[in-house]
């Protein structure tokens, strides 16, 4: 039993850490998020050069063939730099779905391009009404003479405005909440009938609302089986959630360290505020919250590792429990970081608020803590 990184993983970690330290400081990030694209194409090219974009993809496509642990290693370090480039939407969502749908013509075409940094992807699944139920989909794909015709509106599509390609989850059968009638389609971002409304998220990432108005795509744009889209979404979910939570623990580490450091320099009533026992005990609680969150990420990694003896139900429990714990720890750590930084923590100028806002956004992605707690309760108690 060990929780140590392999030599390769340690190298990967150091590579990301070094890049962020040398080339992605807070000022650089500020410039990137205030640019029109909201991301740096130079950075993205560098990510490709450094091999990070190849990590989860099979050697078959020219990838590194890495697993959840490797993703977690990268994501934790990206979290420390609150990097806004679209690693999650392009590599983990778009790329993940492509990997699982394939091998097929589309994956053979696009995955190498992703690895080379020439294809940016997005996954359009959310709709205005769907909240955290991914299966709540009203957007339709119907047969047409030329292939498929897509109609509907998608909300908060991560990387939606920069993506060259979009995977759209659309209803091909069943009612509004049916999980079995959803199919995935590959759509070129410049196809006629698509209108994209981009905006910046509070975490500095770019997202978009996308309207599909009679968008015609070829018959072979269907990914995998008809009505079988949710199966692929379920397949990528463990890695996506683990990746996001790993990013979160990177952020928590930064926030806790920064807060402790601040209390040592900030003087009130003639002494550093780190000497106030009430604050000390609260910082102990944030320390423990970060450790517990990290343990949960490790637990999920172990549950989904090859050779794990865990039954499916236990794996899913670990996954939900991870998201719940990360949500709670994030909330505590984020709010205490601001509170203990006092007025300074409230300013847009300091980095603290930006780390907190990224934590808040991660909490929202693919279900907040309460959503996962409901699911956890369901499979833990109701089925019992």
């Amino acid at each position, binding site marked *: 039993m060990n929780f140590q990184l392999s030599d390769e993983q340690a190298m990967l970690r150091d590579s990301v850490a070094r890049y962020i330290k040398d080339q992605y400081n807070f000022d650089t990030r500020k410039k990137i998020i205030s640019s029109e694209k909201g991301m740096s194409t130079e950075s993205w090219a560098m990510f490709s050069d450094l091999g990070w974009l190849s990590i989860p993809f099979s050697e078959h496509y020219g990838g590194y063939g890495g697993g959840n642990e490797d993703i977690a290693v990268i994501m934790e370090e990206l979290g420390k730099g609150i990097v806004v480039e679209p690693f999650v939407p392009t590599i983990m969502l778009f790329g993940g779905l492509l990997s699982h749908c394939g091998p097929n013509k589309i994956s053979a075409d696009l995955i190498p391009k992703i690895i080379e940094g020439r294809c940016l992807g997005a996954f359009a699944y959310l709709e205005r009404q769907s909240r955290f139920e991914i299966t*709540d989909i009203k957007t339709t794909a119907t047969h047409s003479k030329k292939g498929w015709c897509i109609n509907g509106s998608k909300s*908060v599509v991560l990387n939606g405005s920069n993506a060259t390609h979009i995977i759209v989850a659309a209803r091909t059968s069943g009612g509004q909440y049916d999980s079995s009638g959803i199919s995935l389609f590959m759509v070129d971002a410049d196809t006629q009938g698509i209108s994209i409304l981009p905006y910046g998220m*509070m975490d500095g990432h770019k997202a978009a609302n996308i309207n599909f108005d009679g968008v015609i795509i070829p018959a072979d744009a269907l990914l995998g089986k008809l009505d079988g889209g949710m199966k692929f979404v379920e397949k990528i979910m463990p890695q996506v959630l683990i990746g996001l939570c790993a990013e979160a623990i990177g952020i928590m580490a930064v926030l806790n360290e920064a807060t402790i450091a601040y209390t040592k320099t900030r003087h009130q009533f003639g002494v550093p505020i780190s000497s106030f026992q009430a*604050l000390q005990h609260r910082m102990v609680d944030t320390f423990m919250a970060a450790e517990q969150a990290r343990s949960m990420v490790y637990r999920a990694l172990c549950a989904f590792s090859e050779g794990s003896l865990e039954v499916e139900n236990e794996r899913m429990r670990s996954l939900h429990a991870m998201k719940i714990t990360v949500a709670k720890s994030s909330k505590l750590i984020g709010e205490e970081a601001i509170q203990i930084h006092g*007025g300074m923590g*409230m300013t847009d100028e300091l980095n603290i*608020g930006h780390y907190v*806002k990224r934590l*808040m956004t991660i909490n929202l992605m693919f279900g907040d803590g309460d959503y996962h707690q409901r699911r956890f309760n369901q499979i833990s108690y109701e089925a019992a």
Partner: protein
Amino acid sequence: MDVTFTKEDLAFRDEVREFFATEYDSSVAGSLNLATISDGACYKDAIVKWQKKLHAKGWIAPGWPVEYGGAGWSITQKFIFETERGAAGIPAVIPFGISMVAPVIYTFGNEQQKKKFLPRILSSDDWWCQGYSEPGAGSDLAALTTSADLVDGEYLVNGHKIWTSYAQYADWIFCLVRTSKETRKQQGISFLLINMKTPGISIKPIVTIDGRHHLNEVMFEDVRVPTENLIGEQDKGWTYAKALLAHERTGMAEVADSKRAFSELKERAKYEVNGGRAMIDDPLFQMRMSDVETELMALEYTELRVLAAMAEGGTPGPESSLLKIKGTEITQAIQELQLQLVAYYGGGIPSNVQKDGYGHAFAEEARCGYLFGRAATIYGGSNEVQRNVIAKMVLGV
């Protein structure tokens, strides 16, 4: 024990409701909503317009002594007024003039100062801001270093104030300044009124994590202030400020506004749906809501108890700190639920997207409310300092 309303109370309530319904028209309300709050001039105009209506009615400063323009209301009437104001979704009067500097002026100021300042505060012709905090002196207010030296019969003010709300709109600022260097840091502080148009004053906006401009730094460089603007005695300013602080905290329970915010939350929870089920029907979300609502119901009566005790001639003691702590914690808890309710949409859909109908009607309000709301437990004496105050009073250590 008696909290029932008399016939007169009920008649007063009807009058208040009627006044709000008639006078707080939608054009005023429209200018005050969040979509336009980033337009400063528009925001200030709307506030002033509304406050002038309150003034015309004689209701702008119910808490003042009647001789200076107060309304002479009973505790019950004040409670009714506040409750109705909150219920109608009308913002509280901007506190810096009416509830912060004015009590200091009418309690410790001279006749000339009262005549000069109070009428223009009542009429909202002067917008005031507060110059207390400094970069090195946050919750430790008395550590301030901004100096006012008597030179040629005037005070020469030099220093740096921070976290000054709405200084960008202000005509006047009331400041704590150091007029002598005593060993005990609370001594040697004076209370000074300074015209914001005086040469040497500069303002630097502070953008907060909600992306907006509420706060400022205010810099003083050889600012000349006539001695007639000194309140009371020189070096005694700490006493005046302290009297004001307990007063300020009492007003921080914000029960009426939290009640309004909570009822909005409840309304919204009926229309936010997850997997076909309205959030208001979700047992977990219900529990989160009632955790907050019951705290708020208790705080409403805690506030009434404090007000009733003050009406009996008591002064607000540690209870005022309790109102501040609980009030701000509840405000934040409601903001958290508002944000939780809008889910993904809290992440970042700006108002222009809302207008296009793609977005979410109250997502931006929820996000900015939550983010700027984090300040509530920091300003006005951080909640940590309030806990120290209670500990001192309650524990007697």
